[in-house]
């Protein structure tokens, strides 16, 4: 006889007590479910508010008000010897003022000429530089209007407000309305946002510099942290003896992942810039700094991925006589790759949004053209957002939100890539 078979009193599964307990148990289940559900709803709600406000303020930046008119490229103002320094401003000014011959010279003409952006002459310069044969002819160009009129067109500030409370005066409104009535005003997609670098003028400012800077920065980060991280993780996981020292290293790596990013910025400032004398504001230094921050993430993710490779595969390889490095290179690493890549991309996605350490090493440089190498000063998306958020011009408010949306888009793209890679590689077998 086994000891377990002593007789229990038969339990009444259908009694009043049992029913009450059952009811309580179901109620508790329901409550727990509701708590979870409400937490999700709250989180989703907050996210919706955040995204909503960004979209509400930012969407206007994705279109730009343009004015289209004919310009006579006057040979008198064209400098044959030095086309770059020709007086394109006068060409624009003369042609634009010709649209309103009734406006007398003086302050009124100046007010009229506020309508096209200062960038108009740059656009004309580009066109002429590309094709000098246009000199002496009349061409039609479409240029951004200046920020005030862009805002006005997009409905910022009421038309009925007192003239003093507006940034455009009554006369300017009349001119602008006439241009609109003539079909000269249009609001196409704002490509400037993506193919121009920064500018003092919101209507001319774009994210190209920041995107290129971010690209270089991520490149440097990846090139540094991916191989180093994997190598470190392989050593720690596969070769290092398990003793006090490796324990300490492991704990410190985990701690490093939790160090505030500003500390890395200070470290970079002190070591990379001051001790090594590397160039300020360069993606190289930024990448090195971010690589330091990403390393622990990659090491931890890689170690977890290595650990997750079933021991049976190692045994199988050892069993047919594979040496340790063959086991790792032929079997363990390929199997761990999805995990490693996911960890790396998450780490990079984290790096893409990092601001504080970059500000410390000066990666908030004001650059009116995209940098061409990892040693040129540059900005990144988050630091660009930081710069724009700090700028007084009203146009930058919408631009900031738009830049944040672009940044979020990049993050989603990278996370999507991580998910795709993981699915893809894991499904292979």
């Amino acid at each position: 006889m086994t000891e377990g078979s002593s007789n229990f009193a038969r339990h009444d599964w259908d009694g009043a007590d049992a029913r009450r307990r059952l009811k309580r148990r179901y109620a508790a289940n329901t409550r727990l479910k509701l708590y979870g559900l409400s937490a999700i709803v709250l989180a989703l709600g907050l996210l919706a508010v955040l995204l909503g406000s960004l979209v509400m303020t930012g969407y206007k930046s994705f279109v730009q008000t343009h004015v289209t008119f004919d310009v006579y490229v006057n040979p008198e103002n064209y400098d044959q010897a030095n086309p770059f320094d020709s007086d394109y401003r006068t060409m624009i000014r003369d042609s634009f003022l010709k649209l309103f011959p009734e406006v007398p010279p003086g302050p009124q003409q100046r007010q009229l000429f506020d309508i096209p952006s200062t960038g108009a002459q740059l656009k004309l310069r580009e066109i002429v530089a590309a094709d000098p044969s246009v000199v002496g002819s009349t061409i039609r160009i479409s240029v951004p209007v200046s920020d005030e009129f862009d805002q006005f067109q997009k409905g910022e500030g009421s038309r009925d407000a007192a003239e003093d409370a507006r940034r455009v005066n009554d006369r300017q409104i009349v001119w602008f309305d006439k241009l609109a009535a003539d079909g000269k005003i249009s609001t196409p997609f704002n490509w400037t946002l993506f193919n121009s670098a920064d500018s003092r003028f919101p209507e001319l400012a774009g994210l190209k510099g920041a995107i290129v800077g971010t690209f270089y920065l991520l490149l440097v980060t990846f090139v540094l942290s991916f191989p180093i991280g994997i190598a470190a993780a392989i050593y720690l996981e596969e070769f290092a003896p398990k003793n006090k020292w490796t324990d300490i290293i492991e704990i410190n790596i985990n701690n490093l992942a939790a160090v505030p990013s500003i500390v890395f910025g200070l470290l970079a400032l002190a070591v990379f810039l001051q001790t090594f004398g590397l160039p300020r504001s360069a993606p190289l230094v930024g990448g090195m700094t971010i690589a330091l921050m990403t390393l622990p993430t990659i090491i931890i993710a890689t170690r977890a991925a290595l650990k997750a490779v079933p021991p049976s595969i190692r045994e199988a390889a050892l069993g047919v006589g594979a040496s340790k490095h063959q086991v790792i290179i032929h079997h363990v690493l390929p199997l761990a790759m999805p995990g490693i890549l996911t960890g790396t991309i998450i780490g990079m996605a984290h790096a893409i949004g990092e601001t504080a350490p970059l500000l410390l090493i000066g990666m908030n440089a004001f650059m009116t053209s995209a940098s061409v190498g990892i040693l040129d000063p540059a900005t990144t998306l988050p630091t660009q957002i930081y710069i724009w958020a700090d700028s007084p011009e009203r146009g930058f408010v919408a631009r900031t939100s738009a830049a944040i949306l672009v940044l979020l888009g990049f993050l989603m793209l990278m996370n999507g890539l991580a998910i795709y890679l993981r699915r893809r590689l894991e499904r292979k077998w």
Partner: protein
Amino acid sequence: MTEAQVEMKTRMDNEANNVKFSTRGVHVFYGDKEALKGVDLDINNNEVTALIGPSGCGKSTYLRCLNRMNDTVDSARVTGSILLDGADVYDRKVDVVQLRARVGMVFQKPNPFPKSIYDNIVYGPRIHGLASTKTEFDEIVETSLKKAGLWNEVKDRLDSGGTSLSGGQQQRLCIARAIAVSPEVILMDEPCSALDPIATARVEELIDELRENYAIVIVTHSMQQAARVSQRTAFFHIGEIVEHGNTEQIFTNPREERTRDYITGRFG
């Protein structure tokens, strides 16, 4: 007799008796824990030797001494003599990679590489440089799969994944993979514990066929399996061999009370 003569005689005896592995006084320590307490056992050529015993008795530990798989455990320490054809496998001169090619292993859970059937088989020969041309590799694949009784089932899909096979097929693939490096001994660590009875029977049939060419050591928890496939059986208990001998004798008339109690199901 001089020492050399004694050694000569032992060697000749061993050859006459067809001894492949001769192990004497094998101790294994995991840290402070003594997992094997002096095991003496001979493994013969062309015979299946079954190691039985309750969990934690040291039978797998012993098995893993034979191809030095215990090396992969940091805290493991092995003493005693383990002679493969008269040469100590723990000798410093012995290359463990070569040893493991000579002494193949099949594991409890079928563990094909997540590669194609073809690549599973050629992996061993490739890293050991046993073949160089495509024709040679093809031949190895065909021979190994035929020996493992899997050829007819997979010959049309050598490129499909090894893990897409059924459990029993996977285990036979693992056996084929072990055979591919032409080992002399095949160690099997509970090779059928994850298989259904039909797949188990196939593997047992295969083991019986392989006996012609290899020395086979099998660890099993199924006494019926040990009784079915082996010629010799060793009963391990708490790190030592309680009894070893002809399988028939062990299962009809064990000499030791502990053996009897174990195989009749009196303790576990």
